[in-house]
């Protein structure tokens, strides 16, 4: 028997859970998130580890918003040297061309565009300009900047990027960060470049986040291994998280979805996460969050990070309800964390979505509150508007007409009815308030492959098998138990206007963490 710890650092709270080998939740706690993050983690861990565990804690998993906040607030970011492999191609559009000025100022460094890269078949555009790579690396080293390396069509053939990374490591030494794009984004050069540059810019944020978590965990329980959750809902080891901090962006929603899936024992379903100011609606496919298609804006920069597909609506427990000239409006603003001071039900003066639901007698609240005095017609109208918002978000995420239940998590999930419009059943698992931390604790290890291949009838099956096998092998190499490793995502996306039926194949495999005891 052994235990694992899951920790989720959110904007307001830091949650922690302890689970056993059978993924049962043994202890749970919430502590306020602190500005140094680590003392909040310590406080939450202290609550779940009140007595010495009778069995060893073998692993600790952290999901954290530190990287997301750093980008949004432009805090702690490094300036990054940018090295493109592709000259003379790509020079028509300079790096970071349409970034917001403040983010650009926080991140931009020297730009080198040298010969190299490949075409869509994987053939060299030009031999790699090793001397040019060396010069760019020397400049980055002299300026003490991390370097981002982006090669044309590295998703088809990463060879030049890998070679350039070796040269950079030789020149810059081990303590400087090198980010290569083939590990970060997919087809779409500018979006992948933006993603890679952000990854490099997060070098210090990731170092602080990983170090402080490791220190806090070691002090609390002596767990042998620390893991970080990625935005696809799977784990990465400490060293990997330091190299790919951008994979922690939006890991919070991914954890909440994975936690909800586990708590409700559902592999497929809609996840409705109701907070104080907003509600996130996501979707689980095979137990994993569905990825957002194409471009995702991060801090105002266009990227092709694989992020969970989430629709956010401005409706939460604290959303303000107003009556003006006979018209009832709901939001978009909220009293947020001041709900327990400002809402009518808590003796405040502001009518909120919580008050509406309580006035209609539609929900039981976990803490005793007074029944708010709201005219019934106002409450009914506001409730109708609010559920309309939820309904639209749910409809947008539903993949087909087939019935799919909604799993409600988050502190405000009690406010939802048991059936949503369109006959969507709402499931409310226990421990819904710490779904994020549970999602982190039960996470699996994954490997993924994203490649463009020319598929004709002769080699189609061989190409598919190869990509599938590689994804499985990567998952096992990352620490997945080979017995539980399986394919969790498979996509074939045709590429327009090219002869030879070029297809982008994407595979992701995942499996449970190998037990180290």
């Amino acid at each position: 028997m052994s235990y694992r710890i899951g920790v989720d650092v959110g904007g307001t709270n830091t949650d922690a859970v302890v689970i056993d080998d059978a993924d049962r939740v043994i202890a749970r706690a919430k502590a306020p998130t602190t500005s140094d993050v680590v003392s909040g983690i310590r406080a939450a861990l202290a609550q779940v580890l009140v007595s010495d565990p009778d069995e060893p804690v073998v692993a600790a998993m952290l999901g954290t918003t530190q990287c997301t906040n750093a980008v949004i607030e432009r805090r702690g970011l490094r300036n990054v040297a940018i090295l493109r492999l592709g000259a003379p191609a790509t020079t028509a559009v300079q790096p970071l061309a349409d970034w917001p000025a403040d983010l650009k100022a926080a991140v931009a460094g020297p730009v080198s565009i040298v010969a190299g890269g490949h075409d869509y078949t994987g053939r060299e555009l030009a031999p790699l300009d090793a001397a040019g790579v060396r010069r760019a690396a020397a400049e980055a080293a002299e300026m003490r900047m991390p370097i981002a390396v982006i090669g044309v069509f590295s998703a088809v053939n990463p060879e030049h990027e890998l070679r350039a990374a070796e040269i950079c490591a030789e020149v810059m030494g081990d303590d400087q960060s090198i980010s290569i794009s083939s590990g970060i984004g997919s087809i779409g050069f500018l979006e992948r470049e933006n993603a890679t540059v952000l990854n490099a810019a997060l070098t210090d944020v990731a170092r602080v986040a990983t170090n402080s978590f490791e220190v806090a965990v070691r002090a609390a329980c002596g767990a042998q291994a620390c893991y970080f959750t990625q935005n696809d809902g799977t784990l990465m080891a400490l060293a990997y998280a330091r190299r790919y901090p951008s994979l922690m962006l939006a890991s919070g929603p991914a954890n909440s979805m994975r936690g909800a899936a586990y708590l409700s024992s559902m592999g497929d379903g809609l996840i409705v996460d109701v907070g104080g100011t907003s509600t996130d609606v996501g979707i689980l496919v095979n137990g994993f969050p569905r990825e957002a298609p194409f471009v995702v804006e991060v801090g105002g920069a266009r990227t092709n990070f694989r992020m969970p597909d989430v629709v956010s609506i401005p409706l939460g427990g604290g959303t303000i309800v107003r009556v003006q000239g006979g018209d009832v409006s709901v939001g978009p603003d909220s009293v947020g964390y001041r709900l327990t001071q400002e809402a009518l039900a808590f003796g405040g003066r502001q009518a909120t979505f919580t008050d509406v639901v309580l006035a209609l007698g539609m929900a039981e609240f976990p803490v005793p509150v007074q029944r708010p005095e709201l005219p019934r017609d106002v409450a009914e109208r506001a409730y109708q508007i609010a559920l309309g918002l939820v309904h639209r978000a749910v409809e947008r995420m539903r993949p087909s007409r087939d019935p799919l239940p909604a799993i409600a998590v988050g502190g405000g999930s009690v406010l939802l009815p048991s059936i949503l419009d369109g006959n969507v059943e709402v499931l409310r698992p226990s421990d819904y308030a710490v779904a994020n931390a549970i999602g982190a604790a039960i996470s699996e290890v994954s490997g993924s492959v994203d490649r463009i291949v020319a598929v004709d009838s002769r080699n189609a099956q061989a190409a598919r098998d190869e990509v599938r096998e590689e994804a499985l092998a990567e998952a096992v190499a990352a620490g997945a138990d080979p017995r539980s490793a399986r394919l969790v995502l498979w996509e074939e996306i045709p590429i327009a206007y090219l002869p030879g039926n070029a297809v982008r194949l994407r595979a992701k495999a995942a499996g449970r963490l190998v037990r180290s005891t």
Partner: protein
Amino acid sequence: MRRSIGLEELEDIAIGAAVLGTGGGGDPYVGKLWAQQRIIANGPVELVDVDDLADDALVIGVGMMGAPSVIVEKIPSGAELALAFHAVEDACGASADAVLCVEAGGINSTIPFALAADLRLPVVNADGMGRAFPEVQMVSFAAYGLPATPMAVADEHGNVTLLRSVSAEWAERLGRALVVAEGGASVIAQYPIRGRDLKYAAIRETLTLSLEIGSTLRAAGRRSLEVIEALTERLSGVVLFHGKVVGLTRETAGGFVRGAVAIEDLDTRAGGQCEVIFQNENLLATADGVPLASVPDLITILEEESGHPVTTERLRFGMRVFVLGLPCAPLWREAIGLAKAGPRCFGLDLDYVPFEQRLAMR
């Protein structure tokens, strides 16, 4: 009328071009950034009307040829446009007086501005399609019998090939083979045309139309119903269908993405279903099996929430959309236009009927 195109105007043109792109034509984003950088370096570009050109003025069309998915990865060097353009000038033995946009829909709407800024030439406020079409001969100039060649194909390495073909169809076939050999995306300069010919063969004022569509969409922000109303009124179009994507098939065949999207009625929930068939661009919209609109009329899908156009690559299950029918340029409804870009040119077994007539018959 002369008009100056700067950074803001290019934002609008890029959005308008996506509407005229009818689901295909390539994402105008890369072309927009490229042109914006050249405008930052060299200043705004002047837009001139066809009537402002002298009869013997020479204009040359420029754009990209190849796979949109390659263009977004193998970004051009920036030098190849001028190489191709000058090669066609040399072949004509004359300097060009303006840059011509051949395709107002998709990525090729913005690329002429990158070259025009560098060469400090104006861009003609017109194009050869009034929308996006996939092939070199599907152009008004070809419908009027004007030659596509001398045409030059240039790549980022500096390779330049000059073609003289016996027809626009041959220019398409030979050009496509070169593009594939050059890695799937190259730039082309084509249709060197004199002012006197442009005056009857051009589809006029399509760039300012694009600009207007873009500014309408941007100004309306997220109030999509107002967007749809403003847009259909300005373009004499109609909402063919309003619904939710419930089915999507896509496959590659012969280098094209072919497929269909099924959209279920949201307004009535009576089970009405619309299907849009596409081959890179949207080709045919039917409701419960009955044709509503077909190529060469424009079938554009807008996302309900933002009111912004959706390309066939970005369609997905659950998306709420408006399907718009917009009239094509009058030329495409005539015999010479239908011979180049009628439904049968796209393999549809269907006679062309303007969508307004189809709707009136229902």
